C-alpha cells in the first residue's frame, strides 16, 4: 500500500486492569489495521509497564511508599469496578481463560510484537517516584510534546 500509514495514539492514564485491557485490545486491533500505534502511559497507567520483580533503587521515604502501594506490573492491577480487595481480578482472570481471551500481560507482549510503540511519561514517573530501571525494556521515555507530535497526525486518538 503506497498511501501514508494511518496513526492511532492512546493515552493510558488509568491503572485499572480492565481499562488497560481495553486500551491494549484497541492497540492490537489498530496494529492489525496497519496503523502506527503509540500508547502513552502516564500516572497510574505507568504501572502496566512496571517490572514485576523488585528492582533495587535509591529512593526517599515518600517514593518508597508510592512504590509499595502501587501494583508492580500489569498482572497485579485492580479492577475499576467490583475489585473486592483483589477477588475481582482473580475472578475476571478465570473468565478471561474460560472465554479464551488474552490476559493483560499477554496483550502487552502481543502489542510489542506487533510493533506498537510504548512510551512512558517521564514527568509522572518522577512524580510517582518510579525509576527508569523499574520499567520494562523496550519502552521510550518522553513528554507532552512527543505525545502531541503523534496525536496531531493521529486518525484515532484515545484517552483511557
Amino acid at each position, binding site marked *: *500500500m503506497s498511501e501514508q500509514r494511518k496513526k492511532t495514539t492512546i493515552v493510558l492514564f488509568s491503572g485499572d486492569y480492565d481499562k488497560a485491557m481495553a486500551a491494549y*485490545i484497541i492497540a*492490537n*486491533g489498530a*496494529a*492489525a*489495521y*496497519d496503523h502506527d500505534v503509540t500508547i502513552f502511559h502516564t500516572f497510574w497507567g505507568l504501572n502496566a509497564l512496571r517490572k514485576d520483580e523488585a528492582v533495587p533503587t535509591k529512593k526517599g521515604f515518600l517514593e518508597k511508599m508510592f512504590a509499595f502501594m502501587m501494583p508492580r506490573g500489569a498482572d497485579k492491577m485492580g479492577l475499576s469496578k467490583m475489585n473486592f480487595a483483589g477477588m475481582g481480578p482473580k475472578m475476571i482472570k478465570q473468565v478471561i481463560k474460560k*472465554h*479464551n*481471551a*488474552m490476559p493483560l500481560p499477554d496483550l502487552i507482549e*502481543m502489542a510489542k510484537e*506487533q510493533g506498537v510503540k510504548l512510551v512512558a511519561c517521564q514527568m509522572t514517573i518522577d512524580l510517582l517516584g518510579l525509576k527508569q530501571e523499574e520499567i520494562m525494556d523496550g519502552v521510550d521515555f518522553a513528554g507532552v510534546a512527543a505525545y502531541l507530535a503523534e496525536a496531531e497526525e493521529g486518525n484515532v486518538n484515545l484517552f483511557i
Partner: protein
Amino acid sequence: MKADKTLDAKGLSCPMPIVKTKKAINELESGQILEVVTTDKGSKSDISAWVKSTGHDLLDVKEENGEFTFFIQKG
C-alpha cells in the same frame, strides 16, 4: 473455493482473529486467497470491517455450526 493458505482461529477471542489474519495475509502474495475459520461471534463484523479498511477483498463468508469461514483475497 480453493485457498492458498488456511488459518485456524477457532476458539480465539477479540482481538486475536484479526491479529492472526493480518499476520497470515502478510505471508501471501497479492491475489492469493486466505481462508480463515473462526468461532468468535464478533469476528463476522470484525473481519469484514478489517478487510474493507485494509484494501483486501472478502470473496465469501460461510456460517455453519457456529463456525465462520472467510475467504479473503489479498489486495
